[in-house]
């Protein structure tokens, strides 16, 4: 809301000359000043953000009351002329329960209309963006701005028959102000109607068919109160948020209904209009709400030692009337003023008033006496997380945050690889953006988006990770819709290790690099895992991203027989779908549940006192056979011969008969195997392995 300080001074005797100190005061009472604009003539325009629950702040007088409650500065209520309700200007029927109070006054223009609004008023209307051609409309709008009571003016000559405040009927339509075409009014919306037309959507906006103009000679002036929820539903239904609806949605002031009519009379008569008749067919009769509070409970709740006088004075400053119940036990009945009946309902609301009066900065601050230190599993998991991140960050990875959803564009691309899996998403019903229409069931798609987008920015080297979650549709889930899988994904593309200026070439981020990284991650958590490559045709993985990886270049990460992750190169078809060229991105995904796994026991092995004895064995590997299988066999063969460690497995890249020659290096401890026996033990291990894996096609090189 924009307010003019000069205009505000008409409603409260401001006794602070410094604008900055005045702004500090505003903010200390909950009126947050977002902007200030000095204007010629010594005025300053403030853009104020109002608290969402304080409908009474939506006016100059409301703000004045708030300031006065803190400072005691004198309120200057705008002039009014009493209206005597009782004569009937036009027959009116109040049918809708949501109409809480209603007055209607008929005025006629005698002679030529005179301007009744001054320059301050004009500025107030201008800042609110509601300057109308018809002066009577400006008067109506001004009343809303200055005292916070929305009012409405009908051209009486355009009203056909009695006024009815009723619920709309099925199929009814209306043409709200400033609209060229009618809109359908949802059934049961409170409307103001005559015999033929809907004249206004109650509490929201008037309609074109009874709009006053410069030629209007007779008006019906409405000042009313409507149910907040009814107004809110209506405003949303017809897509109109007006000053009136914002005010009513937050709950209007029942006493302001009459005040609005009386302020209108004062201004209209100054403008040459004569009141002919006025009626109040629905009157607010509810007594002021009363809340019982206890001084002791207030002080306990706030941790204060306020006196009764301090509390009652604070409350009375804001219009509350506190009366001691029996004069001794510190309990009070507090009557809530009419402008606060919607947001002050129980003792804690009154405590808030007392706090605001005192100023939150002036309230005591005490650390609780007992603060046990937590030692929860969550903190332990966080420590593990940190260790993992240290590994990743040390290797050049950046943590990123990506949205929890994506859109049809990603689904279509994924569908080029597997249409049925691409359908498996939770849909967002009401997304405002196409790009957020599906909850993501994998993080690969967004990683590929990253590769593509960064590539377009000439940023080809990608190293990124994210702790996130994916949403897997599952009608058997606890919420009958989906399971949330918490995951850590790690993606790399382009160079893993940069080239040196001294001719050392860069090393690309390949799947071995990613595997090494994953191994470090698990080592950082003291977790022993296996990387199990599965057959290319295998489609059994429950991990959502598994199917998006290269069938011949992926492995599952297994801990204690449970698959907890997957690692591999991105499926080539997805690279085509994303139009990613010249790079083979690699990806790892691990379920975050591994953070809570029990560490695998580890032990320190001192280095041998003597130089190790080493022997190499070279095998020709059959196609698609894992070297790890050979490692296991050799390990098995050597296991009983003492402490034997296999220290190196490397792919020589020597192609023999179309097969890879892989050399396995065996290291023996002197204490376990005598030097004279090393060759014999090695040969035995080789023979054992050959025999065991002969059917797989393993041969010696």
């Amino acid at each position, binding site marked *: 809301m924009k307010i003019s300080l000069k205009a505000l001074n008409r409603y409260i005797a401001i006794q602070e000359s410094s604008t900055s100190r005045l702004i500090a005061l505003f*903010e*200390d*009472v*909950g009126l947050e000043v977002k902007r200030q604009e000095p204007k010629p003539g010594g005025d300053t325009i403030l853009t104020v953000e109002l*608290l*969402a*629950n304080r409908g009474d702040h939506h006016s100059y007088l409301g703000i004045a009351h708030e300031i006065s409650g803190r400072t005691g500065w004198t309120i200057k209520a705008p002039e009014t002329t009493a209206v005597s309700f009782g004569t009937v200007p036009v027959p009116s029927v109040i049918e809708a329960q949501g109409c809480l109070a209603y007055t209607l006054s008929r005025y006629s223009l005698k002679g030529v209309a005179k301007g009744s609004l001054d320059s301050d008023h004009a500025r107030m209307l201008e800042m609110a963006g509601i300057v109308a051609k018809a002066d009577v409309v400006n008067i109506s709008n001004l009343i809303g701005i200055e005292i916070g009571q929305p009012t409405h003016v009908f051209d009486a000559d355009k009203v056909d028959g009695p006024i009815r405040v009723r619920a709309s009927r099925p199929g009814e339509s209306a043409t709200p102000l400033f609209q060229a075409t009618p809109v359908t009014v949802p059934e049961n919306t409170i409307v103001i109607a005559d015999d033929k037309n809907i004249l206004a959507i109650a509490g929201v906006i008037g309609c074109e068919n009874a709009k006053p103009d410069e030629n209007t000679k007779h008006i019906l002036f409405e000042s009313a109160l409507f149910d907040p929820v009814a107004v*809110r539903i209506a405003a949303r239904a017809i897509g109109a948020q007006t000053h009136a609806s914002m005010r009513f949605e937050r709950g209007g002031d029942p006493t302001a209904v009459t005040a609005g009519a009386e302020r209108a009379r004062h201004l209209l008569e100054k403008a040459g209009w004569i009141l002919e008749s006025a009626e109040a067919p629905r009157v607010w009769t509810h007594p002021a709400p009363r809340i019982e509070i206890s001084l002791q409970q207030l002080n306990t*709740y706030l*941790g*204060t030692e306020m006196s009764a006088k301090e509390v009652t004075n604070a409350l009375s400053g804001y219009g509350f009337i506190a009366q001691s119940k029996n004069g001794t036990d510190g309990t009070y009945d507090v009557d809530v003023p009419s402008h606060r009946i919607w947001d002050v309902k129980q003792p*804690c609301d009154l*405590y808030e008033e007392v*706090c*605001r009066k005192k*100023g*939150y*900065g002036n*309230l005591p*601050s*005490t*650390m*609780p006496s007992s603060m046990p*230190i*937590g030692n929860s599993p*969550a903190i332990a998991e*966080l420590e593990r997380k*940190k260790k993992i*991140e240290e590994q990743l*960050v*040390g*290797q*050049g990875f*950046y*943590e*990123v*945050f*990506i*949205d*929890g959803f994506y859109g049809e564009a990603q689904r279509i691309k994924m569908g080029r690889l597997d249409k049925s899996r691409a359908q498996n998403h*939770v*849909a*967002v019903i*009401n997304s*405002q953006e196409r790009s957020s229409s599906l*909850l993501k069931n994998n993080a690969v798609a967004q990683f590929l988006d*990253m590769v593509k*987008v*960064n590539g377009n*920015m000439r940023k080809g080297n990608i*190293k990124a990770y994210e702790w*996130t*979650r994916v949403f897997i549709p599952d009608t058997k889930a606890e*919420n009958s*819709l989906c399971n*949330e899988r*918490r995951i850590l994904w790690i993606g790399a593309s382009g160079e893993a290790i*940069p080239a*040196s*200026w001294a001719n050392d070439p860069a090393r690309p981020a390949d799947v071995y690099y990613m595997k090494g990284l994953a191994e470090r991650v698990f080592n950082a958590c003291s977790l022993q895992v296996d990387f199990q490559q599965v057959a290319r045709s295998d489609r059994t993985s429950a991990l959502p991203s598994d199917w998006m990886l290269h069938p011949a270049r992926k492995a599952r990460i297994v801990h204690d027989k449970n698959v907890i992750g997957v690692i591999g190169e991105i499926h080539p078809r997805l690279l085509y779908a994303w139009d990613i060229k010249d790079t083979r991105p690699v990806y790892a995904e691990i379920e975050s549940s591994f953070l809570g796994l029990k560490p695998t026991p580890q032990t320190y092995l001192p280095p041998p006192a003597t130089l190790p004895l080493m022997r190499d064995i070279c095998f020709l590997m059959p196609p698609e056979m894992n070297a790890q299988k050979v490692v296991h066999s050799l390990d098995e063969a050597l296991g009983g011969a003492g402490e034997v460690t296999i220290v190196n497995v490397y792919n020589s890249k020597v192609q023999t008969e179309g097969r890879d020659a892989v050399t396995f290096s065996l290291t023996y401890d002197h204490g376990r195997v005598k030097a004279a026996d090393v060759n014999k033990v090695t040969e035995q291990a080789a023979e054992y392995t050959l025999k065991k894996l002969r059917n797989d096609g393993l041969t010696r090189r």
Partner: protein
Amino acid sequence: MNNQPTNVAKRPHELILKLREDISRAATVEDIGVLKGAHLGKKSGVKTLLNDLGKLPPDKRKAEAEAANKLRAQIEEELDAAEQQIIDQQVDRSIRSEWIDLSFPGKLAPTGARHPLTEVERHCIDILGKIGFDVVDGPEVETPFRNFDALNIPKHHPARDMQDTFWLENSLLLRSHTSTVQVRTLEEQRGRLPIKIISPGRVYRNEAVDATHLACFHQFEGMWVDRGVTFAHLKGVLDYVVSSIYDLKDWDVRYKPKYYPYTEPSIGIDVAPKDTPGSWITIVGAGMVHPNVFKVLNYDPNEVSGFAFGFGISRMMAQVHGVSSMKPLYEGDLRVHEGIAHKKYRKLEP
């Protein structure tokens, strides 16, 4: 060196002359090594002199021995000097040939970085962890009850405007704040006090995405519920947290009224650098848990009280790094992450 050392003369003077002649032809350290063998080895002239000392009469032996030892020392010295000279020359040559251009940037596999928001989040977790707050996680797909109703936000409440919601099937939604975790914890922990939790996490708002609005962002909320928790305790804890993050020598702090449906009274904390007074930024929203929240979750607000708070970690991060828009930090643009993690030096004022 082409020529091998010639036969060793027995006379010291000749030996020195011969040595110097050989040294003059030596070009490498290896050549000097050969000369050391020839002039100091078993078949060298000086060795012969030393070996022949026994044949001399005793009265001459001592003087000849001293002369021979002196000769050997001189040969060693001259060979060492020659070797050192060759080494020096080689090093000088290599230094000249090995010049490299150090105006090239350094080459080390670059480090990455945690997300700047994570850094702030972890800092806050550390601070609150010291006074016993535990980290609790919760689902992002939630029920309207936990996201709204349990938090004193009934249907058609204006507060629902503040957080337009992503709706899913089965009348579920994507949580619009992490207060849902507080509701879950209150549900699960009923009867077990105190509850002291923080719940950082991702939340969603169904807004058209622009420079200042994100559909998905992070919140950091916490709650302390127990018997006898007061508003003064809320202030005490927040004062501790704020003073742990901001050096109060350099920052002004103020409290102000706020409105949240699930707390009453509700407050905000602003900070402003002392050198730019008035430039307040709200970093905390907090308040006493509303009695209606306790009631709907079957707690007796006359028995139990508590406070809840949320940190504006995005704003804190923006203050730390001078970032004006959060949007690039949610788009995976690694140039932005690199820029924040490895900031460029500003030119120093002359």
